[in-house]
């Protein structure tokens, strides 16, 4: 029984970071109907940035969020503005955007490999080496921090969307783009902003990831698969959905990892994706209407 709880704890600990990783992607899809296949590549980019800051000026990776988030925010806004803003009215938008973001992911991967080579990296702050124990259970300190920070950020984002004027504008654009225009929302600007926020979340995730996992340029491929499953399972566009599905699947994967071996764990995500597509394609919290 103790073992079961321990497995659950380890699962929940990771679920927080996964949720942070998926939150940006689901926001971007919700507002602009863009499937950002480069999202995990941007996360890895941010992780490398955190790594470089750690190596260069010994900056604590958690604190590096103060840099990675604004940097990724600006990159996100520029990226959207340059590539997508003017194409939003094109009827073949969906196909083209997916492939463009896919190509972007490759370019980022290659660029990172060129600069940093393919050696596995990780940042090693002090807290990455210890675990907290309480009673018969333990949780790695790094994962606990990551969990807390992730939840704080996601709740913060949710509050922002709920209670600020701009947040409401973003929600409105997600729910009915035309009506948002009608009440005077500048949907193009809101879209650009949302992409920036989405990538800012990716930036935070990258900083946290840097000490929770090891990473290398090609790792983004494995993570995009996972993030996609989480986003589809939760319902594309739903922040709550991303949170719930992340915790659910992380815990499930934790069990799979324990009983079948760590190499089988990723399969949990893919199986969950196909199951949800079979029975409830719009995800747990998604809407039936397709964008």
């Amino acid at each position, binding site marked *: 029984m103790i073992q079961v709880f321990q497995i659950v704890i380890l699962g929940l600990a990771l679920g927080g970071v996964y949720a942070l990783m998926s939150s940006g992607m689901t926001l971007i899809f919700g507002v602009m109907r863009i499937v950002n296949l480069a999202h995990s590549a941007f996360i890895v980019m941010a992780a490398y940035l955190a790594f470089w800051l750690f190596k260069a000026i010994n900056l604590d990776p958690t604190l590096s969020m103060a840099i990675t988030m604004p940097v990724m925010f600006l990159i996100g806004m520029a990226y959207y503005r340059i590539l997508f803003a003017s194409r939003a*009215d094109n009827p073949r938008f969906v196909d083209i955007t997916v492939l463009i973001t896919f190509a972007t992911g490759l370019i980022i991967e290659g660029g990172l490999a060129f600069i940093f080579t393919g050696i596995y990296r990780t940042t090693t702050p002090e807290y990455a080496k210890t675990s907290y124990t309480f009673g018969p259970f333990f949780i790695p300190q790094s994962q606990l921090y990551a969990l807390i920070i992730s939840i704080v950020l996601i709740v913060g984002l949710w509050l922002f969307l709920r209670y600020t*004027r701009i947040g*409401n*504008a973003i*929600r*409105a654009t997600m*729910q*009915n783009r*035309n*009506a*948002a*225009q*009608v*009440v*005077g*929302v*500048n949907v193009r600007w809101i879209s650009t902003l949302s992409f920036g926020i989405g990538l800012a979340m990716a930036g935070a995730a990258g900083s946290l990831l840097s000490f929770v996992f090891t990473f290398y340029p090609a790792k983004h491929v494995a993570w995009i698969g996972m993030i996609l499953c989480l986003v589809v399972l939760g319902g594309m566009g739903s922040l709550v959905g991303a949170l719930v599905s992340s915790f659910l699947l992380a815990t499930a994967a934790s069990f799979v990892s324990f009983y079948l071996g760590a190499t089988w764990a990723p399969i949990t995500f893919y199986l969950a994706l196909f199951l949800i597509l079979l029975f409830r394609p719009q995800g747990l919290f998604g*809407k039936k209407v397709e964008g």
Partner: protein
Amino acid sequence: MGTLIIDNVVAGYGSGPNILKGLSLTVESCQAYCIIGPNGAGKSTLIKVIAGLLKPREGKITFKGEVISGLRADQVLQRGLSYVPSDRSLFPDMTVKENLRMGGYILRDGRLVNRRIDELFTMFPILKEKSSQMARTLSGGQQQLASIARALVLKPEMIMLDEPSLGLSPKVAQQIFSTITDLRKNGMTILLVEQNARKGLQNADVGVVLDLGTNSFERPASEVLSDPRIQELYLGKRREPLATEDQE
């Protein structure tokens, strides 16, 4: 001195053909205009151009003496021209109150918006009752009322409605039209596009027939209603004269 002057407007979507082909129209203030016409004639396109959602390719639109063609939607809203799109267009996962608050989006003053919302709740008690329910749970007629109320938050001088009776039962549609008539009595200028030509004209002062991208007809509504050509083309010819307006 008209409130809204549309001068020889040419417009279309994307790189497609011209839908409006040199349309001119003057909307006098405090009057209700109803635009009727066949599908594809450009009725919805016209409203979108006026509202700032579509840029005209040629021509000019003036509102209260100021040129508004080419302005963005929020800029048009600022000048006192509101738009109620067809198909209600509420935000389905926001409450009625949040929807109304979005109506006041371009006003930065939250308290002012709240005051206006309270006034609207007095005007539409059913909305007050449903104020914290999700918009998608409302009935068709209630959604349409909410849509209109949302457009009224800014206290516009003129309001444009695109097919307000779409998908509504005759009784509910009549309620909507009564609301519109009340607004007009209180001094608002109304521009209406209606597929249900008869109902629309019965509730308007002036009828405008839009065909092939230009207006072919602009008369007092009652004249338009009783014109035999209009009857044949758009209203469906009647063998016997009209009994009451409630017959459908």
